[in-house]
């Protein structure tokens, strides 16, 4: 089975120029964890909830080690206010792993597992986005194979 048989073709996407706040509202509204970012028909990155968290929390949070926040620092509040000024292209993940539409379903599953991806984007030779497949789409298709 190929990825093109199960991918969702009617995809929602974002532009790199949109504000992070608007983009976040969009993914919260559609109850999804992330969306591809497309510019002139080409994929330029992926915007996810995790990217927003990374932009809000201090960059040294991992390096300081184990601790528990008891309150919200002033700076985090400032960063939340400034989200409206940030563009999607400022926080999105770049250099995203993509596959072609002829990719086997299991290869897409392998990539998702190995690269810890929640969704995989399908592009053509010119990087034009053709569709998207989430983990649940792949699992559903694999379960169907077992029937």
């Amino acid at each position, binding site marked *: 089975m190929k990825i093109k048989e199960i991918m969702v073709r009617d995809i929602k996407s974002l532009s790199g120029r949109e504000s992070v706040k608007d983009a976040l509202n969009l993914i919260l509204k559609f109850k999804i964890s992330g969306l591809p970012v497309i510019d002139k028909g080409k994929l330029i990155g992926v915007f996810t909830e995790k990217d927003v968290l990374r932009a809000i929390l*201090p*960059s*040294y949070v991992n*390096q*300081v*080690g*184990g*601790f*528990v*926040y*008891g*309150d919200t*620092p*002033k*700076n985090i509040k*400032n960063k939340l206010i400034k989200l409206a000024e940030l563009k999607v292209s400022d926080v999105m993940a770049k250099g995203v792993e993509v596959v072609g539409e002829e990719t086997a379903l299991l290869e897409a599953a392998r990539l998702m597992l190995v690269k810890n991806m929640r969704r995989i984007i399908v592009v053509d030779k010119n990087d034009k986005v053709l569709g998207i497949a989430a983990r649940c789409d792949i699992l559903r298709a694999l379960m169907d194979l077992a029937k």
Partner: protein
Amino acid sequence: MKRKIILLFFIAACAGLLSRNIGFNNHQVLALSIFLMSILGTLFFWSFRLAFVFLGSSVLLLTGTINFESLIKSASLDVILFLMGMMVAMGLLKDAGLFAWIVSLMLRIKNLTANKFLIVICFISALLSAVTSEVVSIIFVVAAILEICDYFEVDPVPFIIISVLATNIGSAATVLGNPIGILIATKAGLTFEDFILKAFPLSALCLISIIFLVKVWYHKTLIQLGEKIKEFGANEMLIKLISIPIEKQLKIALWIFGSTLFFIAMHHRFELLLNLEDNTILLTMPLFSAGCILLWKWRKAREFIEKDVEWWTLLFFMLLFAQAGALSFTGATDVVAASFARAAGHNQSGLIVLIISASALGSSILDNVVLVTAFIPVIKSLKGVGFNLQPFWWALLFGGCFGGNITLVGSTANIVALGILEKERNIKLSFFRWFWIGLTVGIISVVLAAFALIFLPLYHA
């Protein structure tokens, strides 16, 4: 990029030709050119530094400039294992929340005033860098400064600069403060006690001088912070901002680290008592502690080794040490040492000034480990010219650590702190905003150290 590559090869080739003219043989020319390429590689192509030392070391082996036995001997595995053990110990302390606990202590300073804040960040930065290493300590000191400055709505830049200056000064105080400390200790046969007797007091003196200087230099910022503290009142929100998850784990981690520090501090006494070779306990303790940590935290053992040990840096150090060994192996350093002695007029004090100035200036633009690695075989060769090497080792240590304050790329602590500042506050510091205060601090500390090294008999024993 192209220009830099051309410049790198040009300088290395020029050095090769020049050294050929002053009487170096083929192997010496090759060893010098390759070592120079590795140094310049770190300056021009930081991300490729490991590739440079891999390729350079391969060429040295393939051309017979050095053999495998000497390469492995020169790679200073003792230093590498020491650093690896300390990295594992630091990983545990980080995981157990020690650093976050120190941040929380800083956030909870009672009856905070601007002067108290200045003194606390100076002493904490210096002391922590002396016992945990400059790169580890600067991260959480900067984290605390950012939170405090945000709370009181003052510019964090002066306080971050101050903490970095104090960190670099503190890093010279013990064997643990900077990788060059252990490197010099092993090559010169210095003990932790030597550092406590000779390096610690001088670092403390420099730190106190620097506190007075920055108090004047950042007078306006301190007044502004004082006013804000009065305006905002007590730091109540900061007090409850963070806490540590598992206190028992922190206590055990502190106990392990405390014991490690105790045995490292007393290593010379125990070595005498047990009739062990010099520095055996010093070099073994971090490895022993790392072993205990890996046993205690066996579920996370792989994580400590894979994530907390900076293999990239250690491999780079190993091969760089090996390349410096090739300089010594071929006898190139004897020629350089003789030139050094001539330049200083065969005068001990002149050579002290030359070494401390050259190492301070060099480490203001280069990684100090690279610089010290280059100097060590030269200093060893000076023994053959009839000098007392003791003050030279200390000159190398102080120059290498204090010189890091001169420019904003002078040490890893500077780069880490300014990186956090840029990421967190979008503040990109200009070269000169750092340079004037950095240069002043650099000159004061280097001059103080040079005077002590020349005039105090303590440093000649």
